[in-house]
């Protein structure tokens, strides 16, 4: 089955107006996302495939995006 990345139940994505940044919050950790990472995670809605996500991002980023998504899934923050 094609993977359609979505945030796992453990993870919450939110903007932090105090620190002007995006955060991924999990049970024992707060991950500060840079702009690129936040843009990718923001597209993980359970509808888009990895190819769909790549298509919405600037050209030439495919390898980095795929690696990033795999890494975040390995942490258990995406399903």
């Amino acid at each position, binding site marked *: 089955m094609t993977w359609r990345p979505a945030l796992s*139940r*453990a993870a*919450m994505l*939110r903007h*932090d107006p*105090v*620190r002007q940044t995006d*955060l991924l*919050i*999990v*049970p*024992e950790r*707060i991950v500060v996302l840079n702009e690129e990472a936040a843009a990718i995670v923001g597209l993980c809605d359970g509808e888009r495939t990895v190819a769909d996500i790549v298509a919405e991002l600037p050209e030439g980023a495919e390898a980095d995006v795929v690696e990033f998504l795999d890494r975040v899934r390995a942490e*258990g923050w995406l399903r």
Partner: protein
Amino acid sequence: MSAPWAMLAELTHACPLRCPYCSNPVELAARSSELSTGEWQRILAESAALGVVHAHLSGGEPLLRPDLAPIVAAAEGEGVYTQLVTSGVGLTERRLGELAEAGLRSVQLSVQSATGAESDRIAGVASFARKERAAAVVAASGLPFGLNVVLHRENLDAVGEIIELGLSWGVARIELANTQFYGWGLLNRTALLPTREQLARAEATVKNYREKTDVELIWVIPDYFDGVPKPCMGGWGAISITVAPDGRVLPCPAAYDLPLELPNARDHSIGWIWEHSPAFNAYRGTGWMREPCASCPRKELDFGGCRCQAYALTGDAGRTDPACGLSPDHHLLDELAGGGTWTFRRPAPSASGADRSAP
């Protein structure tokens, strides 16, 4: 000054368990002094505005607060991620459903050892069977599920069995936390203190399990033993705030006994407390340090260690943490030897309204 990221909300000091390692203060806050629902809602809103994004809802046993769901909802409404830290006693399917509905994000369940007999002996009350039922309820809910075990002389040798128990309960994370000697834990330090050999064996067991399982195993080091102090709270007044059941606000959950005038959220905003209260500024940064900390290259890494431990061991919270090998007081730790009997904590603070469901 940076903004705080996290809050430890001690919703009540009442607890059905009587664990002798409890880090609650020996002078437990009375139930009649507890903050109201509305006060917690205001504290959560002020904290979120200041920068808090993560709240551990703890105690005591937070399930003893009948208004836990509205408190969770208030945090969720402010965008604050909530984790319930519970003994599991009272965590029924219905209760957890109500909390999840309110926005609860994750659950951390405590257990005292690997078997019912041992867990109940350490908890001081029969509670293991209820923990087993709670574990099944959390696992079935699909909420992120962590197990927490405080380790000491009486259960370190069972660390492998404890990990097996967690795996069989379906947890995603096991926090193996060596006892921190504060509150009741300090009172019972002698009886809880492990041997170096016990620690080495347990650490080797944990290392083995790391190769066998994907479940995250967190080993919280016992800083009495390795000559390097722990970085107290990531720096005093740097990352986290603790709110006591009666509204006192602390830079660290162990700071109850320090000779500081603790600010109260009933009298001041969380913003004022964080930025201006004398208690939060007492050991902030590095300006307060004396030697050997003041010229130490590690001072921005460990912040001189733990103020509460320095005070508990030397009577002066401004001294270098004796856990540090460079501390002139380090010999105080070498002189400690473990063994003996312990004192169970009181089941609940003496005041009206305390829960009496414990046997």
